């Protein structure tokens, strides 16, 4: 199942069609436009495919940022412990309490809706869960004899963290990241739905938002981007599950 879904996700990435406005306005799915066209005559299929790029950029960008921050702060908190750990943990808790979506709506509404901004914001608000996971990993790993051995060998703390602890502990974070990617796409969709997204880019969320007004007469304009989003989110969830099972065989049924 795991591999099946990777196969499904991959073709989304490959064919990039240019998008251009054609004369057929709002036509239903037909030969020339398999997914139909939107109110400006743009081919839905092409736009759906282009939308993938944005989706992936958003997903990977924000999850990547979140993972980097999370791994870094989580490792420090876990390894050094003490006051630093307490402070960082409180910080994590604080962030977890904040309703991040509303925060993002606020920020975007105030500061503009550039897509890179959105990625940044998502990344900066979703790192706490990664940090928590990483910290837990570090706490258990730092007692392992090979860490002691590295210390005795004279390896400095920096290298211990980067060569020993993080490579061994990052797997749950990676699994979590795929789930975060799925989440990021949904958030982006939500923001777009509220009209807060950059109107110049082609994203599924944008497409849905734009097609709202025409839902009754042109169902395809909403349907296909919606399905695309659904499949992507589902696929990412499956991958996330798959990764957790691979690295934690006890979860295997």
């Amino acid at each position: 199942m795991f591999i099946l879904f990777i196969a499904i996700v991959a073709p989304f990435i490959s064919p990039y069609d240019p998008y251009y406005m054609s004369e057929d306005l709002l036509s239903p799915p037909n030969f020339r436009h398999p997914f139909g066209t939107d109110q400006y005559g743009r081919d839905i299929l092409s736009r759906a495919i282009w939308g993938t790029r944005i989706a992936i950029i958003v997903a990977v960008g924000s999850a990547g940022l979140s993972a980097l921050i999370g791994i870094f702060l989580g490792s420090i908190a876990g390894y050094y412990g003490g006051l630093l750990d307490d402070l960082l943990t409180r910080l994590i808790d604080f962030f977890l309490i904040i309703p991040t979506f509303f925060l993002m709506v606020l920020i975007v509404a105030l500061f503009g809706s550039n897509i890179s901004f959105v990625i940044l914001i998502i990344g900066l608000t979703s790192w706490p869960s990664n940090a928590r996971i990483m910290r837990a990993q570090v706490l258990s790993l730092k007692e392992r004899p090979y860490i002691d051995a590295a210390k005795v060998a004279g390896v400095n703390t920096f290298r211990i963290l980067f060569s020993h602890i993080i490579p061994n502990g990052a797997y749950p974070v990676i699994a979590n990241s795929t789930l975060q990617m799925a989440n990021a796409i949904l958030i982006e969709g939500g923001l777009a739905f509220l009209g807060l997204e950059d109107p110049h880019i082609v994203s599924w969320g944008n497409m849905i938002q734009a097609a709202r007004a025409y839902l009754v007469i042109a169902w395809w304009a909403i349907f296909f981007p919606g399905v695309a989003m659904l499949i992507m989110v589902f696929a990412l969830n499956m991958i996330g599950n798959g990764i957790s099972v691979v690295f934690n065989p006890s979860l295997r049924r």
Partner: protein
Amino acid sequence: MTDEKILEVYDLKKWFPVKSSFLSSIILRKKSFLRAVDGISFDIKRGEIMALAGESGCGKTTTGRLLVLLDEPTDGKILFNGIDISSLKGKQLKYFRKRIQMIFQDPYESLNPRFTILNAVTEPLKAHKIGSKDEWIEMAYKMLAYAGLTPPEKFFNRYPHELSGGERQRVAIARAMIIRPEFIVADEPVSMLDISVRAGILNLMKKLNKELGIAYLFITHDLAVARYMSHKIAIMYLGKILEIGPTEKVISNPKHPYTKLLLSAIPRPGLKRRRRVTMTEVPSPINLPEGCRFHPRCPYVLNVCKQREPPLSEVEKGYKVACHLISSN
């Protein structure tokens, strides 16, 4: 073995705070401590192997960790080549990390599972910036061969899980040796290995001692292994050394009642079991008995044993015992 002392330990202590319940800390007004190491003193000469033996919980592993500076002592001094290393940090600490190394008990956990053997063995060289990249490979080659892993190149790109326990321990030894330390703490290095493999590792360590003059602190609960390996032996119980002296003398003619108990408990093939001494167990190191720590289990207990702790006193040259009964003779 010379007469020069490479390691001297004076009144070394390591106490761990124990979380007591809120009420008891209010009522008793004192924190309770787990006195893992409670004032031990000994020295090791250059090229000497000293065994530190005792049952689990006696503090021997903690002692080992203190000597390699993985933990900081609560009190007491550690002198290495005459220099106080008890509380070193930073560059100075790193300097001594070149000279003092450790071999761990668990061959399965002392190697990073994601490092190749080559990476694992050369890591200390990288950490101390010794030699160039090409030299690293050559040094790893020589060290693995010396440790009995031949042909060495075959091991370079393997991972720990592909090796057997004995092979892993040889890698650990090679790793510890590659920077030519003067002193190694070996913490139960063979207790997790199969019997037929142990002899090989023990003999390798003896070879390193004979040929390269490396001094050891050999931590073990197995007195037979201690006898085979060491020139000198110290018996540890609940954080204190009860008897310390030349190995053959201590083993063949133990003076302290605890040592006698330990030795009598070892199975003797060929002889059928005789009735042994005591059915009691080791008390908790948090609530230590008053006076001599061993007195509740001692068949020769005197009144003074319940009140005062016996000091470690010399009964012969180089042979000390902590027992009221012995020192009074």
